[in-house]
Structures are given as structure tokens and as C-alpha cells.
């Protein structure tokens, strides 16, 4: 499997470290909703198909990435810097950078 790093270009998957499901959203840190935290920490939908996930190019530029990958075929539809995704999310929510 090759992942095309936005900085480095196509690289072998051995250069990358998987960092988990990127489709989850963390509850408000002030929340004491036990069920919400339990779901955030433990519940996974085990997607068969397009999956949004975090990877780090740990053996290259060390950038954190958001990868859209099919868990059925390993086809990769997009790779973006996680920083840019986070900036976009901040802009959408109107909170300061």
C-alpha cells in the first residue's frame, strides 16, 4: 500500500504510523456525560468501506495526516494534512485558531 504524503509524495506504508479512527469527535472536555465518553473511547463502527483515519508520516516528514481509505480494497481517495483539516474545522465552528 502506498500513501501519497502531501509533502513527500507516494511512500511505502512502512513509513507511516496508524493513529486511529478520525471519524470520532471528542465530547466537550468539560462534559461529565459518562455514556458520551465511553462511546468516544471504546465504540468503533468497524467500517467496511470508506474510512476516515489519522496517520503520521513518522518515517518521513513526520506530518500528521487525515487519510480517506477503503478498508475493503485499501484504495486511498484523499490524503490531507491534519493541520489543514483542523484549521477548516475551527473556521467552520467560528472558534479562534
Amino acid at each position: 500500500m502506498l500513501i501519497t504524503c502531501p509533502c513527500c509524495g507516494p511512500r511505502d506504508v512502512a513509513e507511516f504510523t496508524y493513529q486511529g479512527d478520525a471519524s470520532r469527535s471528542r465530547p466537550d472536555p468539560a462534559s461529565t456525560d459518562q455514556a458520551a465518553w465511553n462511546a468516544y473511547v471504546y465504540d468503533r463502527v468497524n467500517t467496511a468501506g470508506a474510512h476516515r483515519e489519522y496517520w503520521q508520516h513518522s518515517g518521513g516528514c513526520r506530518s500528521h495526516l487525515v487519510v480517506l481509505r477503503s478498508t475493503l480494497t485499501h484504495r486511498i481517495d484523499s490524503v490531507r494534512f491534519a493541520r489543514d483539516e483542523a484549521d477548516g474545522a475551527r473556521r467552520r465552528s467560528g472558534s479562534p485558531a
Partner: protein
Amino acid sequence: MVEQVSPLGSAWTPGRHGNLAGEAGVVLSETRPGSIVQAAAFPGSEKAVMAAIAAATGLALPDGAGGGVATDTKAVFGIAPGRFLVIDQVEGLADRLKPGIPVETGAVTDLSHGRTAIRIAGPQAEWVLSKLFAIDFALAAFPLGAGRATQHHDVLAAIQRTGPDRFDLYVFRSLARSFWTMLVHAGEEVGCEVR
């Protein structure tokens, strides 16, 4: 200047190794720079850091990921977004970079004692490096002066092409001896000369 001690120790075995037919396919040597420094920019300060590198070294970085330039005594190349490896045969480069890169602009990290610089040159340099690293070493894909951050298993390496048939590799000093030994083994097939 205090004499540098090579981390290669007894693994540095000058002379010809492996295939003895014809000219050596690769020549391995240490370049022993006095300074190996990482210059990193905060987002938005990339141009300021590139200008500071130019002011301190006279080297003008090209735009674009992995771009770089090298002379006989100095080199610079991109290793990550907004991060550059800067090399000078003369000691003290970190101190020369710091005035142009204040803390609000970026960070200067002196790696001179943490990295070892290994040069592989010769007509089979691309071939031998391709045994170890899963990147394309062809001139069209890896142009002159350009840099790449990659790894051989757990040995992270920053690699710059400093000639049509020549690459300079920067690896962790603590892993330099085993990495060097592996390079010699990889080069034996095509004839490896250690200088």
C-alpha cells in the same frame, strides 16, 4: 578546533570491498561537517526562515517541498513542511542562524553531535541506495540538490542528492556504525570502496 571523533570506529575499513572487477560501483566516505542544524518555521514564517538561512549561509533555497542546494562546503534542503536541514563544514552554524530566526519565527536545533554525514558516490549509488530505501532515486524523480526524509526500517535518514551520482545521508550518530556496515555490505555486489 578539536579533532572530531568518528562514530564509525573500527567499522571504517578503508579500501576495496566485495566485487574487485573494474572501477568501484560506489565510494563511501564521511563528510564530517562541523555543523548540522535543523531550522524550523512556524506556519506562515517559512519565507522568513528561508531568508535567514540565505543570510547565514549564502544558499538560496528553491520553493517547493524537498527543494535544496549544495556547494562544496555548505548544503540545505527541505525535510518537512517548513523544516530544513542546514549543513556547514565550519562549526557554529546554529549561532549564525539564531539571530535571523527568533522564537516567534521558528526554532533552530543544533544536531551537529546527533547526526553523522555519510557520502555515497559512484555509478551504482542509485542502485545500492534502492536496496535500502523505498523511494525513487532516479535523477528525474530526485533532482540535483533535492532532499528526502525517509527511513530504512527504524533508521531515519535525511538524504540529499549532491551530484548526478552522489548522495549525502544524515543518520542518527548512535546508529551510524551499524548503518555504515550495512551500506558496505549493500555495496559489495558492485564493488565498494571505503575512503
